[in-house]
């Protein structure tokens, strides 16, 4: 008989709620979905008649497009709403907005919001699966999943791998999701950043902290470079971007001292020459565009696994 799979949580809000089995299920499913995007006709009828709403209160190219393409390749109807074009600018509250959207019977909501915790709050008010597409400085679970898929494709197994995350940890929801998920998968995580960009007490998450880039990446299997969030640098945490770059920009010179099979990943968008040099970004170890390709497959897997209860909408 056919083997079946299911996820333990109904919403994807935080990587904390996913077990290692859940993550394996999502990665395996995504791996099977990758083939569809290589066909001439990139569409399967699986979610025909289902409605997905992308509700984005923050700018996004990659993530929004990725969720949209994922939904469309599964034949779902995808509606995009951006914060600036929604009634929230007329003063409607977030909860009222989503309740009104719920009244139109969508099957799933994908939410990005600049406030940490907004997607979790929404789950208390509406009875639809919610996928967090990035909330403030909290989490970005689908990014973490596509990072894991990319790493697994190149390393075979996640368990025991050493990952070094470099950059603005304080503001990074990608870092937070990954620290949690990577530990769940039995990987060890090291953080490299200047002290102002590291939250106090981050060691309590079970990570090693280091302020020197060359030392921090020495025996890493994977180096994850984070974007310096220019829009969040008005708080005087860095004296200048150039100074940051001098100490923390990953260059070819650094790579000559690390293992030859060390992988480089970056969640994008990239500030060329600030956190990563041009030659590293476009070099053979950089998997930045593989990550984007895998993002579509991960989001297809999330839709497939979460959208089941068509009957759950009935009262």
């Amino acid at each position: 008989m056919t083997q079946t799979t299911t996820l333990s949580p109904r919403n994807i809000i935080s990587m904390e709620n996913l077990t290692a089995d859940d993550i394996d299920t999502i990665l395996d499913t995504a791996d099977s979905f990758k083939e569809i995007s290589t066909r001439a006709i990139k569409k399967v009828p699986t979610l025909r008649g289902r409605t997905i709403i992308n509700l984005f209160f923050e700018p996004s190219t990659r993530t929004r497009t990725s969720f949209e393409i994922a939904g469309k390749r599964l034949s779902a109807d995808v509606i995009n709403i951006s914060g600036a074009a929604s009634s929230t600018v007329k003063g409607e509250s977030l909860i009222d907005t989503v309740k009104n959207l719920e009244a139109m019977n969508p099957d799933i909501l994908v939410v990005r919001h600049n406030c940490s915790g907004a997607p979790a709050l929404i789950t208390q008010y509406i009875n639809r699966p919610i996928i967090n597409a990035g909330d403030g400085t909290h989490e970005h679970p689908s990014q973490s999943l596509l990072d894991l898929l990319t790493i697994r494709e190149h390393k075979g197994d996640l368990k025991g791998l050493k990952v070094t995350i470099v950059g603005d940890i304080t503001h990074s929801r990608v870092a937070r999701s990954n620290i949690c998920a990577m530990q769940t998968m039995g990987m060890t995580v090291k953080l490299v950043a200047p002290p102002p960009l590291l939250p106090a007490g981050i060691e309590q998450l079970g990570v090693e902290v280091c302020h020197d880039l060359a030392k921090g990446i020495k025996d890493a299997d994977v180096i994850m470079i984070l974007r310096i969030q220019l829009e969040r640098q008005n708080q005087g945490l860095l004296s200048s971007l150039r100074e940051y770059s001098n100490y923390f920009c990953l260059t070819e010179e650094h790579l000559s001292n690390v293992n030859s099979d060390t992988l480089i990943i970056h969640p994008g968008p990239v500030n060329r020459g600030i956190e990563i040099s041009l030659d590293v970004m476009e070099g053979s170890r950089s998997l930045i565009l593989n990550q984007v390709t895998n993002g579509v497959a991960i989001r297809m897997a999330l839709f497939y696994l979460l959208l089941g209860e068509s009957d759950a909408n009935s009262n």
Partner: protein
Amino acid sequence: MNTIILSEKDIARAINRISHEILERNKGAENIALIGIRTRGVTFSNRLQKKINCFENTEVAIGALDITLYRDDLGVGLQKPELKKTEITFGLEGKHVILCDDVLFTGRTIRAAIDALIDFGRPASVQLAVLIDRGHRELPIRPDYVGKNIPTPKSKRVQVFLKEIDDEDKVIIQGQGK
């Protein structure tokens, strides 16, 4: 109550015969492609390919199809069929495609498989090879090559065991009732 209806030797003979029938009907192995439906249809197609390659001294194109995304019963509950890979690395244009599955029952799997195939291109024809035809069709679908016809009550279960997956070759009928 389990009854063995095909033994290892019976299965081998059926596969030999079907291989010859495929070659006879298509006048050789030129332009044919075998596509197995996961999971045991793939094993079945691999064995057919081996025979045909040997009889005709050629290399027949082969692929694997997972029909999960084309099922008509998805969406009931959160238990999802485990999705496996579809691997069709050649164009279907102009090919005589032989779909292979272990058991033909309601015909719904084959309906899904044909829909999936069409998304890959326009084959010259699609033919169906099954190891067991147990009847009870719910759609107008019939096989072109059959290992064995086994009229069964709907309440019973026909199970195919193939060495590559199950360590032995046999077909059994399980369950009570008539």
